[in-house]
């Protein structure tokens, strides 16, 4: 399998070349175009419960598509939902935690498990239902805006809406930033305080803030 990221950083897609018999798994709706020798198999990967969990907790689709090249090599292009970057990472028998909706596509060998971010994340609201991607293989994930890799050594604070993912070696706690006044007036809501050593990925725009802004423009109709 070969890949090429095209159109970085604002509106990238990933072009994947599959050898005969090779396959790749992607979120429903991520396929842009493909050669006609690629077969699609749609399934609820991980069973009905696993898929439900993935859908409810991680904002991913219930069904995922598996694309397999038949009778020669094939080429397929995937795009994320949001405006912004697409990041590649080769996992080597390791895990990465991604926030809601960040997973785009990856090797079929990678295990995707939805994780409830814990009771505390109920207060976090934004994307704190994580999914854990684990195993060995290629992984592509997306961000709203640009993506930045941060190597944390010690402590670091990230706004909940700006987290794309992080390594499980990092510990995190959800907290408010600033004093009590800040909780209501700062517009920052909740943040994640990471501790330990590992990488985190942040995005330069925030889905929730953008959605709230867009919502403010909606017409208001009185209920009859």
């Amino acid at each position, binding site marked *: 399998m070969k890949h090429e990221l095209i159109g970085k950083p604002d509106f990238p897609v990933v072009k994947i070349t599959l050898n005969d018999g090779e396959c790749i798994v992607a979120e429903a709706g991520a396929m842009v175009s493909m050669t006609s020798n690629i077969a699609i198999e749609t399934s609820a990967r991980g069973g009905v419960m696993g898929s439900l969990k993935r859908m409810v907790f991680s904002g991913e689709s219930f069904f995922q598509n598996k694309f397999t090249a038949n009778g020669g090599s094939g080429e397929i292009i995937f795009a994320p939902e949001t405006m912004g970057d697409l990041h590649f990472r080769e996992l080597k028998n390791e895990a990465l935690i991604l926030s809601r909706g960040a997973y785009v596509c990856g090797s079929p060998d990678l295990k995707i498990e939805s994780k409830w971010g814990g009771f505390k994340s109920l207060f976090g609201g934004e994307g704190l239902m994580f999914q854990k991607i684990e195993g060995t293989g290629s992984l592509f994930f997306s961000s709203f*805006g640009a993506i930045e890799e941060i190597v944390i050594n010690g402590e670091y604070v990230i706004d909940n809406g700006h987290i794309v993912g992080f390594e499980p070696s990092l510990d995190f706690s959800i907290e408010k930033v600033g004093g009590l006044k800040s909780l209501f*007036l700062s517009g920052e809501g909740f943040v994640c305080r990471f501790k330990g050593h590992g990488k985190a990925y942040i995005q330069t725009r925030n889905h929730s803030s*953008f959605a709230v802004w867009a919502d403010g423009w909606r017409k208001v109709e009185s209920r009859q």
Partner: protein
Amino acid sequence: MKIDIKYKPGFAMACVTLDADDKIRAEAGTMVAKSANVNMKTEKASRGGVLKSLKAAFFGGESFWMNIFSTNGTKGEVKLAPTLPGDIILEELDNSTIFVQSTGFLGAEDSIDIDTKFQGLKGFFSGESLFFLKLSGKGKVLLSSYGGIEKRNVSGSFIVDTGHIVAFDESLNYKIEKFGSWKSFLIGGEGLVARFSGHGNVWIQSRNVPQLGQWLRATLPPKKK
């Protein structure tokens, strides 16, 4: 204070390095991340009492409160980004004054005084929330744009669509007027424009915030009250 702007021009983010005594004031909700030794305090937008802040909230369009970031004596960093896709530009004010359209303000060094200038009836006519924050003093200012940003030096007279103005120097005079004849105004789709005159800079954004809003308004289903 050192400011690095990364990921220009589509989804820019300002990375601010704070030294021991540095403080930066940022628009509410713009913090992306910060090092653990940076503290955030929420304060009223304008110094000078509640009345001034109320004025900022109602007329400035920006949040009533702003966040002030400082370090606990060691070097720290805070990353800031606006809500909309687009660019960020860093300007150094040298005992000068600029007017910044409400959505174009991202942050400013603590030494910069933030005030509002009520636009009066001129502003109301535009329907495009033509409210400006008045930034003056000596220090760094971060402007954000929806789309790209262009700084244009005006000498004489120059016309900018009101939705495309990010900021302008105090040295410029401006007048809000309809675009062309009444016919162009009503069916030409340009609405109101600002006619600048004199000498100074105007910062222009390549997309129009109210137009995006109107597009969303037409696209999204109505809310039920």
